[in-house]
């Protein structure tokens, strides 16, 4: 296995691939270009990004790139799939709670002060209009989006698919949003360490993940203080405030990256009580949850993907 590591999207990116070294090197360059180009389009932290331009165009038709339009289509599907628990229209709330610049800057310069609860949103996310034939998008007036919820997973999948054209098996891990194509030789699955959200040096379990997506969402990693109050980045769309969760993190295995990422967020917000209504036996979806005491639990098929014994990790 050949590896490459770098930073992008405010995260550590790990590329892994099997194949001829020269081909894999070309594949790594293609995957890296895909990630950096996607980040430039989908970040909300740059005024010049395509997403920021879309947010400024609310009320008017905007003609989107293939990447942005694809991410919006996926976001709309997942908003409906999760009953609105995954909602990209929480940007106002996120900024109100101090996450109005990259987390590195929030921690370095401090968060903007708390100015009180925000008025209700002027429209719902499913009122966004999409025209696939022209890739036209129209946001309702006053609505602004944050695609951070699925952008990393979406881009991890796109870049892994590009890398797979140069490799026999490969995986792209974009800060916890992982997408794998094929399986490593001599093994039927990808070994992936499931980190303890309280201590990233500690691995609670090793998953044997099939090709597809593995995404993790946590209320523990992206935290900061605002006017002396602890905040985190997971906004509960039902309250417009940082979610109060029983679990500290949820990891989802699913066939596609956007689904895994959105379902991890929705399950984390819903907790053990609401998890059953979000998943069903028809889903090709497995999840793992870690609580505040480091206890691990999972959905009915979770044991199938757990590495038992330490002999062949």
């Amino acid at each position, binding site marked *: 296995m050949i*590896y490459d590591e770098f930073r992008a999207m405010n*995260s*550590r990116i*790990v590329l*892994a691939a099997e194949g001829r070294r020269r081909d894999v090197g070309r594949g790594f360059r293609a995957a890296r270009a895909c990630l950096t180009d996607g980040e430039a389009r989908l970040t909300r932290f740059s005024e010049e990004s395509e997403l920021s331009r879309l947010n400024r165009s609310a009320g008017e038709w905007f003609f989107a790139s293939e990447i942005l339009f694809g991410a919006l289509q996926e976001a709309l599907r997942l908003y409906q799939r999760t009953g609105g628990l995954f909602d990209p229209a929480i940007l106002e709330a996120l900024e109100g709670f101090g996450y109005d610049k990259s987390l590195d800057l929030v921690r370095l310069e401090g968060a903007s002060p708390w100015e009180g609860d925000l008025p209700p949103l002027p429209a719902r996310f499913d009122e966004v209009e999409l025209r696939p034939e022209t890739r036209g998008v129209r946001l309702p007036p006053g609505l602004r989006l944050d695609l951070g919820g699925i952008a*990393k997973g979406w881009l991890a999948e796109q870049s892994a698919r590009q890398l797979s054209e140069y490799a026999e098996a490969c*995986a792209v*891990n974009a*800060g*916890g*949003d*992982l997408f794998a194509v094929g399986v490593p030789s001599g093994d039927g699955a*990808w*070994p*992936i*360490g*499931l*980190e303890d*959200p309280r201590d*990233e*040096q*500690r*691995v*609670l*379990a*090793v*998953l044997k993940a099939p090709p597809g997506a*593995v995404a*993790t*969402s*946590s209320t*523990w*990693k*992206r935290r900061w203080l605002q006017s002396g109050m602890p905040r985190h980045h997971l906004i509960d769309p039902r309250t417009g405030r940082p979610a109060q969760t029983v679990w500290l*993190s949820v*990891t989802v295995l699913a066939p596609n990256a956007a689904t895994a990422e959105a379902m991890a967020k929705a399950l984390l917000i819903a907790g*053990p009580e609401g*998890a*059953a*209504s*979000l*998943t*069903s*036996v*028809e889903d090709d979806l497995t999840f*793992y*949850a870690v609580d505040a005491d*480091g*206890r*691990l*639990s*999972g*959905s*009915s*098929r*979770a*044991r199938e993907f*757990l590495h038992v014994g*330490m002999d062949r*990790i």
Partner: protein
Amino acid sequence: MASWKTPLRVLVAAGSLVGFFGSWALLAHAPKPVPAVAQAPQVEIDRPMPDLASPPSLQPLPVLPALPNFALPRLRTHAS
């Protein structure tokens, strides 16, 4: 020896007949067996029973002991 053989045979045959007919009469008057389902207490079902399409329930899972980093996979979930 032969003098008591015949009465013994008659005695055994009579005992068998008495046992057979006695048991028959006893069983004929005994309470009839009842199917197990009919004996089960009737339970009021006040909520729908789970079916195969019900959502999966959570199960506790084992965690690994603390291990050195080199023994663990390079790809990690690393929550965002």
